[in-house]
């Protein structure tokens, strides 16, 4: 047995109830004290494999060897007791409880054998956060803290339980660049203290920056493991998808036309009473991609939600295609040829239990009716759905399968296929490629450019700076609920410059910002 190897999985098979083989014959080795990246396309089975390691899913076959001994991980409790900790991609925190309560949950200090010992609890949580140099206030309630602090709480939860092997499933997806940097510092500290980290991400640059080795998964199996220093981003992505992919979107210069969406003085107050939007002005023109950049939580998602009618602003006006919008309702806006790719595809983007075909035309079912205007024309729907599935290369068994059977990227393709409709004049795309692999991202980006060239106006809300720089024609930056900067020509913009505005280090004058109008 190799001394270095702390965790080893051999010949893991996992079949989901619907018959999809998510993991087939997976072999995977993690060395002690390394940061090991796991990367793979949509549906490659990374999450599934991690869930197996953390006892959430049971494999049908295969062995897990930890510290040279074969182990059976029946549940998370067992995993924790074996020193495995997992930070899931989605937060697993109780919002109404404090950080300390979240950290000690399941391991609560007691007094008189029956009651909570609050003092002891705070002490424990504090000691732990100090030990790993996590700068947080453990008495705060989760609902009041930032995403970064939540992520730290998640990691502390694992560490306080003595995790030696830490699984991080796409931990940076929701973090700002600054927070990501901070996290990386902390991960390096952990590494120095002897912890082993498995790091899942779709972002190659992060993997190149922090990881020691990388394992690539494709179609349910591990295809390759190599040292980061011996490989290159190009190499990794080739192995991931098994073909050359174009990392850059080719696009012709924009030809902006008339204004088709105009927002004035939009104000929105969120549920905890913060002014999430504080007098936002913007104009969107035909044939251009305007991107909205910004550090998460500065009002971009609220802006998208207001412009699509998902939430109602407390002040301001909106003009679409020259018409004043009285009612902020998705139905009204959609009637005005506005479509929307929402950020949260599972909540707002699809009905997971309905079939793919039923999810394809939800917004335009009225145009799939028979002559009497009551009955649905199933035949027309089927033809069109089959066409779109091909056009967007949605990987599925049949268009009658439930959407929930698809992997994340393919669900996103279904959403995009629905929203990128022929007669759409305004497209609001919110994080359209978040959390999906390069191949699918490229397809969606290409489609967006295609629609721009056809004369649609596109508002791209994205936290991915590469995407902003590559895809958009002009850019606005949001900071603290206000538009902080407007750049008419994105191609003249650099990543650093954008960062300054996003963090509020730099700020344009009102006149410069209002140049958009």
């Amino acid at each position: 047995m190799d001394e270095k190897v702390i965790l080893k999985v051999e010949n893991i098979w996992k079949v989901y109830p619907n018959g999809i083989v998510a993991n087939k014959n997976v072999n995977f080795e993690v060395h002690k004290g390394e940061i090991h990246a796991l990367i793979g396309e949509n549906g490659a089975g990374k999450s599934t494999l991690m869930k197996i390691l953390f006892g959430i899913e049971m494999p049908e076959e295969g062995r897990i060897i930890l510290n040279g001994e074969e182990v059976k991980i029946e549940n998370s409790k067992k995993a924790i007791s074996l020193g495995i900790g997992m930070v899931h991609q989605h937060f697993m925190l109780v919002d109404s409880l404090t950080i300390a309560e979240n950290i000690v949950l399941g391991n609560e200090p007691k007094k008189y054998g029956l009651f909570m010992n609050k003092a002891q609890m705070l002490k424990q949580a504090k000691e732990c956060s100090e030990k790993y140099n996590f700068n947080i206030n453990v008495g705060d309630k989760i609902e009041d803290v930032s995403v970064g602090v939540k992520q730290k709480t998640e990691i502390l939860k694992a560490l306080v339980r003595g995790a030696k092997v830490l699984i991080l499933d796409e931990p940076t997806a929701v973090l700002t660049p600054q927070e990501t940097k901070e996290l990386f510092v902390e991960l390096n500290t952990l590494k120095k203290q002897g912890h082993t980290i498995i790091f899942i991400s779709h972002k190659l640059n992060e993997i190149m920056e922090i990881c020691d080795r990388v394992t690539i998964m494709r179609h349910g199996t591990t295809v390759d493991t190599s040292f980061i220093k011996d490989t290159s981003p190009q190499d990794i992505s080739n192995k991931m998808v098994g073909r050359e992919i174009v990392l850059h979107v080719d696009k012709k210069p924009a030809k902006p036309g008339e204004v088709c969406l105009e927002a004035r003085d939009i104000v929105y107050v969120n549920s905890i009473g913060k002014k999430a939007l504080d007098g936002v002005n913007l104009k969107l023109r035909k044939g251009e991609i305007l991107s909205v950049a910004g550090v998460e939580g500065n009002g971009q998602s609220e802006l998208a939600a207001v412009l699509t009618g998902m939430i109602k602003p407390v002040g301001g006006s909106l003009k679409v295609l020259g018409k004043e919008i009285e009612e902020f309702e998705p139905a009204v806006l959609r009637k005005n040829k506005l479509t929307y790719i929402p950020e949260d595809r599972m909540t707002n983007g699809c009905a997971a239990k309905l079939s793919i075909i039923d999810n394809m035309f939800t917004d335009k079912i009225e145009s799939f009716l028979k002559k009497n205007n009551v009955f649905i024309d199933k035949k027309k729907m089927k033809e069109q759905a089959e066409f779109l599935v091909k056009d967007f290369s949605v990987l599925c068994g049949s268009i009658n399968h439930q959407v929930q059977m698809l992997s994340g990227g393919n669900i996103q393709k279904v959403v995009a296929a629905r929203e990128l409709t022929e007669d759409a004049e305004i497209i609001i795309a919110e994080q359209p490629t978040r959390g999906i692999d390069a191949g699918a991202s490229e397809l969606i980006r290409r489609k967006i450019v295609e629609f721009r060239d056809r004369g649609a106006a596109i508002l791209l809300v994205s936290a991915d700076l590469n995407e902003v720089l590559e895809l958009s024609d002009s850019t606005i930056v949001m900071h603290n609920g206000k538009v902080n900067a407007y750049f008419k020509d994105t191609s003249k913009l650099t990543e650093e410059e954008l960062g300054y505005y996003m963090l509020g280090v730099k700020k344009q004058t009102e006149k410069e910002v209002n140049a958009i109008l």
Partner: protein
Amino acid sequence: MSSVLESIFSTTFLFSVIRVATPLILASMGAVITSNAGITNIGIEGVMLVSALVGVFSSAFGFGPWFGFFMAIITGVICSLAIGYVSMSLKADSVLTCIAFNTMAIGGTVYFMYAVVKDKGTTIALQSGKLPSVEIPIIKDIPILGDILSNHNVVSYIAFLMIFVVYILLYKTPLGLRIRSAGKAPNALSSVGVSLLKTRYIALGVSGILGGMAGAFMSMGYVTWFSKNMTAGRGFIALAADAMGNSTPVGAALSSLLFAVAEALSYSLQITMIPPELVQMLPYLVTIIGLVAYAARKSSLDKKKRKKLAEQ
């Protein structure tokens, strides 16, 4: 009319409010525990019913009412766990499971009643005994208070004690922390290796204890026999009390008391010439109005708060 007022402002009115509220408080505490754990337990109605029958049987064929009380609690726990097994381990929808269970409880109690006493109506043919009433030493001598508070059935005192116990359990113990987490963020609980299933089973078990007590009170405190479908929707009312009280023990208890006041009022109003059907409707109407008022207040407060913040 004056006699109605007289009766409402009498000590006996408040006395009967407490009695009417007893099964509701117990059952609503059960509902509070389960809804905190993230389970909508409309099966509490059936749990009460089955416990009431088992209580009577055990009392009649066993060692008297306290044994019956004990067995009713055991039954409550077993029934609740059975609901849990089906809805959690066998993964059936919890509302559907509860509806199925209630159906089984209504029919099943009649089936067993018939099998034992050859009646489908009541078990009055059995001598099942009654849980005692208790005089509270000092309080009983205080003029008005004594008349209201003393000499209730022992289960009434247990019910009020349970409000306190449930409060402590939910907010001051590790188990309470887990139960609340199970309801608010089940993923969070499993992510730290605490079994969500186990936590919810425990919550259901505790609610079974409370439901069992409520059932025992119906058949061995309120009256001394079981009669077909004798809970008559009290479990549903408990659920409404839980909703009205925002799933807090004190809130749910106050809501139960509100219903009990309306119910007691409906008994007193019967002596007027107001049509009895309208009077009987009162408690349910009050509950609906209470639920709506609570929800409306919540949403208007929310709106106001936002408006105010926007103006700042």
